[in-house]
Structure formats: structure tokens, C-alpha cells
């Protein structure tokens, strides 16, 4: 046997009882007092904000027998019959089920008859947005000039679907989402009436989860009441909403900072096994990361936190670099968890991303253009030091090292065929080992060391992509990409091509001029460009290529 739900049981019965929508009720009460009730109202607003309730209360107020000029008394016969839904003159129409033009024609015919008992005939047309266009149009004339005894109240959640001609014939009242304070007032009133004692914090949590809809809040309260009886604690509300309490989100952030993906995934697995809401957990993690970011950037003082929290945050912040925190915040912030997907995979990927060393994460893994020799050179030295913390099992570093340390050459197979073979010796030799841990520094060192040609080689792709005035998108630039600088003497740059066709193209005057412009603008002085064709001259390599091999890495043999 179903009992009555809270949102029906505690539906306010008069305009004065309706909390939180004072802008509506006050206007209506004033209109009643001055006997200036209009003949057509439109109530719109989000779900659970009191549209139907207000409509019924208004119907009572205009027909109340004891007090014709103000709020309803709820004791007279008329008020009671309306409350029980048996008054003949208050007609509630479900416009979603009666959408057709015939339904409205039927209604129009009956409007003209005088009310049976009440002073006014009140038509409450709920879900009015579902009326068909012709039905809405059929209503227009009546809505504009109804007989003096009729009042129309239209209610809907989707006012934007109504015809403008309907809108302009009604007095429109927009209902607002309930504020936290108003919601709390209503909830505590219901608690009192039901004999429930609830912790204020629990009620606050319910109010927040209901996002401004009173009906949602009352439903949550009722679920809590059914599950846990008349004594509702904060932890009950948390359990219902799948909130963990905040310890494990902190634990996870700790693991991320320590770059321990394995432990992080363990934590996540625990959370999932306990049946907590992953979306909620994700939100907690992002919040905590945000706090960490604020503390790290030194703006933590403005936060309202306990001294213990501040201490914990500071300790964590000291362990991490700003870029690391920033990366984690970004990665977790971008994550969108689908409601229909209960998989932990998206969160696991985010953990792996946030804990991987910088150089292994690339924004667009494979679809980028072929990496230039220069880009490869820059990546290789950065990748070589195995960051000790990212090793899940330090006991066997030798086996683990191979996959972790050399991602750049191998992980882009589809484009490898077009990739020109690089040269110039083992890349590790270029940069002193102690600078390797700092990616930014290593970059700079690769540029400033070495002969002019080597410098140019190091910045070849940068030169092309960053060339001014859109020159980076010209055909000449494209050709330059497939070329390799060989030598530079007396402001004459010699570039070599792997394919005859490319060289011929570059020899076209137009392209050559453009290439010279690009190089000059980079070098800061006028330079000439000369082209040579340099085919693969090692017969072993040639034979291998013929058989379908690919050049992965080459030593500087032909220089």
C-alpha cells in the first residue's frame, strides 16, 4: 500500500504558505486584495518550484467563501472541495494528454457556461507546452477575451516552446529555483511535521544535491526517512548520495603527486568496490587538486581551511612542482564522466596521464605530421633518464626501462615510413647528463651547443613552423620540411633532399625565393639556399628498404 509522498502530503494549500516564491505570491495576493485578478496567467519555471501548487492555491483564493479578497481559508466548503479535486468549477487539464485541437474546441464550448457553485471557473492547463500548434491557435481568442467568469492558468516548464501570441495574452510569472536558505526552511518544516530529527548538515547536503528543485529535495528526504528511520545523520545522507567523505580523494592526490600510478589505481578500485559515486569522487579529487594549486601558488591564505588542512596541503605542495599540479588539475578537470558509464577506465587513464613523466604524454599521439629529425633529437635526451618514481617495481629496472625510456621512435608506426632518417650521432652525447632531468633546460642546451649547422638542424622544424607571415604554410616550407641542412658557408645554406622530385620542385625559382626568405628571417641575415640530391647510398640499407624495412634510426655515416 503506497503512502502519500512528501511532495504531495506537504503541498502548500494557500498562497501565504508558499515559501521562496514571494515575488509571485505577493503580486497575486495584492491583485486579490484590489480585486484586480487577471483572466490569464502563465506560470513557468524549472521542475519542483511550485507552479501547479500556486495555480491551485490561486483557484482557491478567488473562490473562497469566507474571504473573497485575500488568501484562501482552507476551511470553507469550497476550499475543501477544490483541495480534494472534486470542485466542478476548477478544471485541471493535462495538456500533454489532450494535445489536439478537438480537445481545445471542447474546452472552448464549455467555457461559456456559467460556473456551477463557485464565483469563477478556473481552468488550470498544465504542461501547456505540449499543445499542438493548431490547438494553441484555437485557444487564442478565448484566452484573450474569455467570459467574465473564467480564469485561465497555464503552467509549464518550457515556456520557450509556447507561441508568442499565447505568451503575450498572459500575465507571466517566472518561478525561481529555490535558494539554499528557503529550501532548508521548507525541509525543516517538513521534518518537524513528520517527527524527523535531522542534522542540519544532512539537510544542507540534500538541499545542495536537489539543485533548486523542492520536489527532488523532498524525495531525497523521504528516501532517507524510509531507509534510516526518524533520525537522519550526515553520514546517512552521504551514503545515499554516494559521497565518500573526503579522505580517499586526498589519498589519491597524494599518489598522483608521488607519481605512483599503481597505488592510485588501487585507491580508485577501493572506491569503486564500495559502491561510491565515481562522478562525486571525481569532483572531490578536482576540488582537492584545486586547493593544492591555490596553496602552491601562494594564494592559500584566503581559503577558509583549518590549520591542519593547510599543513597537509603545504606538505603535499612542497613535494610537487607547479607544472605537475597544473597538469593533474587540467587532466582531471577536462574529464567528463558519463552517467551511463560506470567504468573506472576514464579515471584510471587520467591517473596514468598525471603520473607519466612529461615527455611521454603528447597531446595528439599519432595524427601529427612526421616528427622531424630535430624533434626526435630534442625528445630523445629528455626521455633517457628513467624517472625513478614512475617505476612501479624498482626491483627489476632493466626490464621496465626499455618500454618506458624509448617511446618516441617506436610509438608512431603509421607515419614512420615517410620519416626521413636522422643522423648526427647518438643524441645522448649532446647534452650533459645532469641537465636531463629538467626538460626545459635540455631543450635550450640542444640548441646552443654545436656548430652552426648542428644548431640549425636542431631548430629546423621550429624555424619552418614559426616562420612569420604565414610562410610556414607555403609549398616551399613543405619542401624544406623534407630537406636536411647539410652545411652553411658564407651565407649559403646547402640542403639535401632524399628524393629527386623534391629537389626539382625546390629548384623552381618561386619556391627557392620563398625558402630563402624563410631561412633569412630565421638567421637574421640574408641567406641563399642551394639544393643537392642525396640518395641512400648504403647498399645494405637500400636492399633492406626494398624488402619493406623501415629506417628507424641511422648513424651519421654519410656526412
Amino acid at each position, binding site marked *: *500500500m*503506497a*503512502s502519500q*509522498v512528501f511532495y504531495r502530503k506537504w503541498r502548500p494549500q494557500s498562497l501565504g504558505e508558499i515559501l521562496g516564491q514571494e515575488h509571485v505570491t505577493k503580486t497575486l495576493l495584492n491583485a486579490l486584495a484590489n480585486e484586480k485578478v487577471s483572466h490569464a496567467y502563465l506560470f513557468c519555471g*524549472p*521542475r519542483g518550484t511550485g507552479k*501547479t501548487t500556486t495555480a491551485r492555491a490561486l483557484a482557491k483564493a478567488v473562490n473562497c467563501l469566507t474571504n473573497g479578497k485575500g488568501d484562501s481559508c482552507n476551511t470553507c466548503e469550497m476550499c475543501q472541495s477544490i483541495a480534494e479535486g472534486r470542485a466542478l468549477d476548477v478544471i*485541471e487539464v*493535462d495538456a*500533454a*494528454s489532450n494535445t489536439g485541437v478537438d480537445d481545445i474546441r471542447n474546452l472552448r464550448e464549455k467555457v461559456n457556461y456559467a460556473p456551477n457553485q463557485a464565483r469563477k471557473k478556473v481552468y488550470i492547463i*498544465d*504542461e501547456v*507546452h*505540449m499543445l499542438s500548434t493548431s490547438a494553441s491557435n484555437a485557444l487564442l481568442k478565448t484566452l484573450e477575451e474569455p467570459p467574465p467568469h473564467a480564469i485561465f492558468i497555464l503552467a509549464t*516548464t518550457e515556456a520557450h516552446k509556447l507561441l508568442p501570441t499565447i505568451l503575450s495574452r498572459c500575465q507571466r510569472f517566472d518561478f525561481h529555483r529555490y535558494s539554499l536558505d528557503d529550501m532548508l526552511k521548507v525541509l525543516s518544516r517538513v521534518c518537524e511535521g513528520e517527527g524527523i530529527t535531522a542534522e542540519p548538515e544532512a539537510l544542507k547536503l540534500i538541499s545542495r544535491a536537489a539543485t533548486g*528543485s523542492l*520536489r*527532488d529535495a523532498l*524525495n531525497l528526504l523521504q*528516501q532517507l526517512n*524510509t*531507509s534510516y528511520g526518524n533520525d537522519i545523520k550526515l553520514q546517512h545522507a552521504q551514503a545515499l548520495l*554516494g559521497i565518500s567523505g573526503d579522505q580517499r580523494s586526498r589519498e589519491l592526490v597524494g599518489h598522483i603527486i608521488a607519481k605512483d600510478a*599503481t597505488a592510485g*589505481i*588501487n585507491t580508485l*578500485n577501493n572506491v*569503486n*568496490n*564500495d*559502491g561510491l*559515486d565515481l562522478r562525486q569522487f571525481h569532483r572531490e579529487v578536482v576540488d582537492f587538486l584545486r586547493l593544492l594549486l591555490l596553496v602552491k601558488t601562494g594564494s592559500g591564505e584566503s581559503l577558509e581551511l583549518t590549520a591542519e588542512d593547510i599543513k597537509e596541503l603545504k606538505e603535499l605542495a612542497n613535494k610537487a612542482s607547479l607544472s605537475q599540479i597544473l597538469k593533474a588539475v587540467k587532466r582531471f578537470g577536462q574529464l567528463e564522466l*558519463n*552517467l*551511463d558509464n*560506470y*567504468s573506472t*577506465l576514464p579515471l584510471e*587513464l587520467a591517473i*596514468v*596521464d598525471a603520473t*607519466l613523466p612529461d615527455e*611521454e*604524454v*603528447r597531446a595528439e*599521439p*599519432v595524427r601529427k605530421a612526421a616528427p622531424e629529425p630535430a624533434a626526435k633529437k630534442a625528445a630523445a635526451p629528455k626521455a633517457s633518464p628513467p624517472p625513478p618514481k614512475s617505476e*612501479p*617495481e624498482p626491483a627489476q629496472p632493466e626490464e621496465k626501462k*626499455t*618500454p*618506458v625510456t*624509448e*617511446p618516441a*621512435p*617506436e*610509438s608512431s*608506426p603509421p607515419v614512420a615510413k615517410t620519416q626521413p632518417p636522422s643522423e648526427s650521432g647518438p643524441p645522448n652525447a649532446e647534452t650533459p647528463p645532469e641537465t636531463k632531468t629538467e626538460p626545459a633546460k635540455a631543450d635550450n642546451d640542444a640548441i646552443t651547443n654545436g656548430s652552426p649547422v648542428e644548431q640549425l638542424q636542431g631548430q629546423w622544424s621550429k624555424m619552418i613552423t614559426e616562420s612569420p607571415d604565414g610562410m610556414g604554410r607555403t609549398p616551399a616550407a613543405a619542401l624544406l620540411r623534407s630537406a636536411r641542412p647539410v652545411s652553411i658557408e658564407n651565407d649559403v645554406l646547402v640542403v639535401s633532399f632524399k628524393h629527386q622530385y623534391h629537389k626539382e620542385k625546390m629548384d623552381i625559382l618561386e619556391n627557392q625565393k620563398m625558402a630563402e626568405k624563410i631561412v633569412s628571417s630565421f638567421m637574421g641575415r640574408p641567406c641563399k639556399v642551394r639544393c643537392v640530391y642525396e640518395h641512400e647510398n648504403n647498399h645494405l640499407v637500400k636492399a633492406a628498404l626494398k624488402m619493406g624495412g623501415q629506417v628507424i*634510426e641511422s648513424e651519421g655515416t654519410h656526412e
Partner: protein
Amino acid sequence: MWNIIGQERALTLLKHGLESGGLTHAYLFAGPPHVGKMTLALNLAQALNCEADDSPCLECDSCQKIDAGGHSDVQVIGLDYNEDEDAERKLIRNEQIDGILHDASLPPFEGRNKVFIIDGAELLSIGAANRLLKTLEEPEDNVTFILLAADENRLLQTIVSRCQRIELQPMSIAAETQALTEKLSIEPERARLLAGLSHGCPGWAINAAGDPKIMEKRDSELDQIISVIKGNYEERFAYVFRLATGFTQNRQAVYDTLDRWQDWWHDMLLVKLDRAEMITNTDRREELVGMSGNYSLSSIREFIQSIASAGLQLKQNVNQRLALEVLMLDIPREEAKALPV
């Protein structure tokens, strides 16, 4: 006796409600497919009409009638069959809702309560959903609506707000393994495999335990995936061609295959991170361990991303063959092979 596996939170709520008379007139059970929404809904319908004291007893006339779908006061509606097109309709139609709204206005015939179960509430057409609103908010006494939805996002907010929303989450793998061993007496190892493959939705595991074809299909799919990963481009493209031709007839099969791919690489990720006890395909542990040694962590994680984006593209009606071929190109190269140059 409630015969649902897991879902303690929902059960507590409903049991307390039954005892204290605090059950309401509208429920929304939200959760992934096979998690037990319909089982729970039928149980609740039985409990509301059961003649025994310890409801639902599952033994009295009423309970058995409901179980067999023959109770006149318990109606289940879902997608109906369109004879003109010889296929299932894509939405729940207005007429179906009009039908139950009319029935809801009549008193119960043989039981104590009328129960209307709407399976796949997210498939209600816009008109049908709106028609339901007024009645869903204030039905007659003795009427209970139970809406089942796998994708809550597609429901009208006004519908959700009128129901007691009960979320049925997937069970943890350990709990499901235990339940399968105890209730269906499956040996632990196989139970663990089924639990993993079902992703915490016992309905799938029960189906698979009863029907060997499901596992055979999964095995052959997995074998294909492994051979495709090891194979050359020609094999991969032939595989895509087969998948893509099937896509127009049966989209869901391709999505399922992609899920299989994702599980496989997810397992590789877990093995790589030394969390081998969490993997899904427990019967292929050796293969997983062997294969994951060939790939770096970052390339595995990038490929998982590629699978996810391929799935998304298919749902957005990108040319299916193109999307799948790009996915094949994204399969990372084994590092061990690349080294000796």
C-alpha cells in the same frame, strides 16, 4: 525472498518501505543493462501483491502469476513490435502510455495494487513522456509506477523529479564472484571470469553461464583481436572490412566488439601497472603478460584513447570503415621488434 543479487542499498530502502508502509507511488530504477532492474521491479510488484506475510514469498498464486507475466494488475511495457516494418520500434509510443493511463484510473482487479513497469523509460517518446507527467505525480491510490532506465540523461527532468530515484550500481567484482559461486554453484575461477566480463552486472553473467554460445562468441572475438594485434596491415584491414559490413545490420555487435578491444587493452594497462589481479580476461593472463611486455605504458594508454574516440566517432555516424581503419593504424607497434635495427 528477494531474488536479486547485490543492491543492498536499494533493498534496504524497499524493505523498510514495505514494513513501515512508506512506499511511494513512483520509482525510477537507474542502472546499466543487466544489473537487475527488471528483477527488482518484478520483485517489488510481487511484494506489493503477495498474499503471504513474508512478502514477496515467490510461492503464492499472485507471485507466480507475476513471475509468469500473467497477473492482470501488473503490466510491463517496453518497445513493441511494428508489423509493418517487421522490426522493433525505436520509441515507446503515445498510444501505449494512453493505454496504461486509462488502466491506472481503474481499481485493481485481482490484486491489492496496480503496478506499471516501464522498461527502457529513456525510450519514451517526447509526447509519451509528457503524457505521463500528471498521472505520475498524482495517481489514484493503489497505483505504483516503476520506471527502468539505463540512460537517465535522456529522461525528462520533470519525470525524474516525480519519482523516487534509486540507482542500481554495478556490483564489485569480488562480491559478484562470491554471489555467482554461492547462488549458481559455479566454480570460483569461472565465476571470477564471468563476473569480470559482465562488469558487475550479474544478469549478463547468468546468461553466459546458461548459454555456452555467449562465451564461445567471446572467445572467438578475443582470438581475432589477438591475431589482429599481431598481424600485418593487410589482416587488420580485412578485419575492419568484416566489422564495417556488419555495422549497418547490427550496430550493437560492433560496439560490443569495441568494448572487447577496450577490455583487452585495459587489462594490458593493469598488467603493466602490476595490478594483474584486477584484470577482466582472467583466462588469458599469460597472453596478456606476454603481450604487455612489448608495449610501453604511454603507448597502451594512447591506444585506449584511440579506441574510445573510435567508439565515439561511430556513434556520431562517421564513416564506419574509415573510423575503424584509423583505429587499426593506431595499434602501437611492438617495441621488441623495433629494437634490433
